[in-house]
């Protein structure tokens, strides 16, 4: 076998691995074939130490991180940090779509209650219905009556609003004797923007979600 043929064999293997990498990257959310190719070639040219670190953390995250058995948030133990914290108010429950929403709300330092992570929003056109979300788990948590306020903090877009509509109706029987209050985050108007530039839908939602001000 000549040298060229041997190189050809090596080259074929090499191409196969690169293609595998591009295929795997292309499976990630919001990454198309072009982006996958760009990231793959970036990794090929990167420092091996950096790539090794990335590979390690990918393996570690799958081995050590799981979802909190109570709220569905990402956790490094059976329960997440918020659920384990005795200073968090167990009577107030904030429902969000994803773990990254927990992070966003935690950053405000406004909220001292606990969370329930649904794992998405109801989106029939994508085949996602109520049974695909952690709604049964939510009802179980509400069953013992210890929660007195349920904050629906789903995204302020169409799917998030529809999910809030569904949940509000589902939970309504529990509010009959005044034991549970349902609230929705006041949404819409970006701070620092002019009212006249807000679009009609956002402005309408802001009106619906208006809270009374103590004077």
């Amino acid at each position, binding site marked *: 076998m000549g040298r060229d043929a041997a190189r050809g064999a090596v080259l074929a293997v090499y191409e196969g691995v690169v293609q595998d990498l591009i295929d795997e990257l292309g499976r990630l*959310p*919001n990454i198309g074939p072009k*982006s996958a190719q760009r990231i793959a070639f970036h990794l090929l040219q990167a420092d091996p130490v950096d790539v090794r670190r990335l590979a390690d953390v990918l393996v570690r995250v799958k081995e050590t991180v799981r979802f909190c058995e109570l709220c569905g948030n990402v956790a490094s133990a059976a329960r997440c940090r918020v659920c384990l914290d005795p200073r968090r108010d167990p009577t107030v429950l904030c429902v969000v779509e994803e773990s990254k929403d927990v992070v966003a709300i935690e950053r405000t330092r406004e909220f001292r209650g606990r969370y329930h992570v649904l794992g998405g929003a109801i989106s*029939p*056109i*994508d*085949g996602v*219905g109520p049974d695909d979300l952690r709604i049964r788990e939510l009802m179980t948590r509400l069953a013992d009556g210890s929660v007195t306020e349920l904050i629906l903090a789903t995204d*302020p*877009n*169409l799917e998030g*609003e*529809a999910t809030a*509509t*569904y949940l509000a*109706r589902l939970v309504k029987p529990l509010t009959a004797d005044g034991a549970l209050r349902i609230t929705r985050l006041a949404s819409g108007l*970006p701070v620092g*923007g002019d009212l006249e*530039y*807000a*679009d*009609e*839908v*956002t402005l*309408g*939602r802001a009106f619906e979600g208006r809270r009374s001000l103590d004077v």
Partner: protein
Amino acid sequence: MSLHRADGIVLRTQKLGEADRIITILTREHGRVRLVAKGVRRTSSKFGARLEPFAHVDFQVFSRRHQPLGNRALDLITQAETIAPYGERIVNDYSRYTSGTAMLETAERLTDAEGEPAVQQYLLLLGGLRALTSGEHAPGLVLDAFILRSLAVAGYAPSFYDCAQCGAEPTQDAPWRFFAVAAGGVVCPNCKPPACAVPQRPTLDLLGALLAGEWRTADASEERHRREGSGLVAAYLQWHVERGLRSLKLVER
């Protein structure tokens, strides 16, 4: 480079990259198109909530080449004005939301080719959303009427009276009793295939009324006939689209 202006109804949105979305719109003049709205997921976006599903919008598109609208996926929406925010009156009612979503998916699936004019389908959807948000009829009935008429516009008009196969008129003043999806509706005893449904008479009357827009008959129908009818409508639609509709089984009636 050129600017186009058009109006249409947002059928679907899909996340793209960090903050963008691909917006699928059924337009009045150019049929179904897919466009990109840059930065639309940021709370500071100038588009706000204007480009969400169900929205009837007047929008401007920046095309990089001189080609009909929608020939490429990545033309950019540069401006959008709300004509009617139907979503607002849909999202607060779960039955409306699920029925309405099935209407959007039906419209998307029955306008196969991107950029090909589909003005009748567009007008049907607009009428359907108006009916859905007016609250005058049950959302499930609005959906079934929309599906039947959309199929008719697409060339698959079902028959609920004469034989769908040979055109024979029924002998008594009642529609033929046998319903065969593959044949295109009710069939006479001569054309009847071995396997077919035998729906109740009021169900066939209801479906005929929905197709013809006779709302008085439809609104007066009983729950059990609506249920049987929606089953037949779903089966008929599934027969004519390649893959099943995801939203249809999530419709709350």
